[in-house]
């Protein structure tokens, strides 16, 4: 079992509140990713779960037992560090065997376990080498091996792939996902890379400045971000935001006007909205050339042609960046006006405080292929 509960966790460094009342439950066997910009407190949170840092207030429960005052081994966790933290003077075998030697297991058992782990991680031929002779990916696998060999209830990963190059990172993502399926252990994974979060997580926890911005399945965050931060953080290129004015609300949604055009967005309305300035969000990949429910004409200043699609960057008259991700080689040119159409059902709407109006869409029907395939 590896069930984790964080109850109103706070952390201060001096007067600086790094984490602000974090509450979260992680189910046994779940792959949860903490994602957020650098310095938002992801590592701090993970280190507190590990037992390397203490909480200022709040409780950490593993399988229902309060573990705040227990050392890491007794919590049943294992941690993989961003910098690998391998012992440079020991062979790969000894590195992986380290936790077992601490436990004083018999030599025979140690050999069996280490060899089994080495096989899973394809390190069997490297057991007698020192970390200095290994490539980055192999070093990271040794670090993972050292975590696996103890058979912990919960694995903690702190940006384990951020020191690897892009190709290797993609491979390791797949390996880690497989490992999770094989071990069926609870994994908590910290990253600032939203691709890693989207591809590996059962659930993503988006952190912003020490607070949980949103918790949800990857596609839920993509389709139904609860606030501007999550909307801007998840998705690449970033979601476009444009200022609109609310003109009416009814049971079908909120009607807003932008540059003389009016459009009704299918979102849950709230009272007293008329006249307020709201923020409309639209993902670059949901823009199409030509007209739509809302039509915006801009002049691209930079165009990137990636073959599979074309990215056009422009600015709105109000100054915001406006980006369009168009399929294939799109007929757009730098300096020539580009007409983009927006469908009302694709739009997100946020109030003055950055909170989203709930979209009247079921994200599971939006991504039916993904859901039915699962």
């Amino acid at each position: 079992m590896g069930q984790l509960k964080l109850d109103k966790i706070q952390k201060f460094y001096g007067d600086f509140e790094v984490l602000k009342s974090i509450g979260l439950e992680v189910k046994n066997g779940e792959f949860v990713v903490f994602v957020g910009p650098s310095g938002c407190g992801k590592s701090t949170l993970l280190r507190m779960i590990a037992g390397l840092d203490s909480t200022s207030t709040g409780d950490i429960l593993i399988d229902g037992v309060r573990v705040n005052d227990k050392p890491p081994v007794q919590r049943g966790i294992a941690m993989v560090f961003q910098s690998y933290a391998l012992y440079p003077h020991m062979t790969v075998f000894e590195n992986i065997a380290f936790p077992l030697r601490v436990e004083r297991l018999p030599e025979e058992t140690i050999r069996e376990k280490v060899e089994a782990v080495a096989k899973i991680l394809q390190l069997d031929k490297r057991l007698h080498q020192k970390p200095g002779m290994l490539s980055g990916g192999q070093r990271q696998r040794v670090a993972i091996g050292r975590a696996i060999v103890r058979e912990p209830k919960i694995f903690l990963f702190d940006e384990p792939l951020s020191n690897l190059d892009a190709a290797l990172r993609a491979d390791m993502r797949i390996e880690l996902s497989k490992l999770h399926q094989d071990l069926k252990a609870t994994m908590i994974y910290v990253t600032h890379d939203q691709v890693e979060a989207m591809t590996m997580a059962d659930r993503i926890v988006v952190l912003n400045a020490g607070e949980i911005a949103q918790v949800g399945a990857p596609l839920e965050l993509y389709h139904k971000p609860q606030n501007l931060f999550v909307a801007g953080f998840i998705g690449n290129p970033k979601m476009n935001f444009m200022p609109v004015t609310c003109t009416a609300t009814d049971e079908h949604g909120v009607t807003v006007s932008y540059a003389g055009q009016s459009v009704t967005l299918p979102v849950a309305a709230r009272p007293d909205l008329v006249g307020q300035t709201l923020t409309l969000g639209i993902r670059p990949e949901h823009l199409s050339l030509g007209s739509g429910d809302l039509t915006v004409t801009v002049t691209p200043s930079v165009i990137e042609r990636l073959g599979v699609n074309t990215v056009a960057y422009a600015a709105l008259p109000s100054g915001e960046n406006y980006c369009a991700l168009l399929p294939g080689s799109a007929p757009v040119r730098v300096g020539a006006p580009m007409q983009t159409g927006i469908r009302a059902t694709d739009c997100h709407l946020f109030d003055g405080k950055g909170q989203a109006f709930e979209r009247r869409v079921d994200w599971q029907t939006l991504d039916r292929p993904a859901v039915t395939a699962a």
Partner: protein
Amino acid sequence: MREPAQLINRYRWYEIVGIYCGIAVFLTFVLAPFVEGFLVSLKPLSQLFSSPYRFIPENGSFEAYRTMWESVPGFARYIFNSFFISTIVTTVVLCMVVPAAYAFARFEFKGRGTLLAAFLAVNMFSGAVLLIPLFRLMRTLGVLNTYFAMIVPGVAFLIPSAIWLLRTYMMRIPRELDEAAYVDGASHFYTLRRVILPIAMPGITVVAITTFIGSYAQQFIFALTFNAKSEYMPLPVGLFAYFGRQEVVWNELMAASFVGIAPAMIVIFFLQRYLVSGLTAGAVKQ
């Protein structure tokens, strides 16, 4: 084959000449006394005061290396004493400094900064300034004229710089290694023994060498003050025996000096094997 020099390491010919000239000047000052001392040890005493003075000995021989043992019969004992005192001092210093340096490098505790500053301050007084108080202390404790009297002050005065040296080295070992070991259930002592010690070996070797040399150098003053028994005398005091009533037996004195440092040279030669750098390669990402 020589690799082509990197651009940044490429010098013009006059720069190279300048560099070598500079090296030559300093090397001359450092090495000339050794060469001269060695040549003197080869000369018969009568030739030493010949004028004009000749650097290269005529019919030089290693005779002095034989007669030195006869003119000062206790000399072997002096060498042993020096070696013995330095070895004990180095061992004791290492045993105390390794855990202390680890603690100073890793743990936050009250008074850490003050203690470190105090160590530096102690280093500013040489032992010589404190000789009289130390002498009175030793007399009160009744340990004058023992090995103990030469070892304990030696240890005390060598510990501060050793802690500073080793602490700096240990701070360069990534903290994640300690944390990883801690997460895997290792105690602080287990981590120190299995992880930190092996990685810190080059640093420990440097500390061992400097301590050994430091102990060799400082024995003279402690031995002169705290010890009157000739059988406990270390090498530097022993060399005084070649200063006879009327004349100094220079050639034997020089020969004895070279023989006297030999054991220390051998120790250092063996220790420097551990001075390999780059032991942390592959520990964390660079």
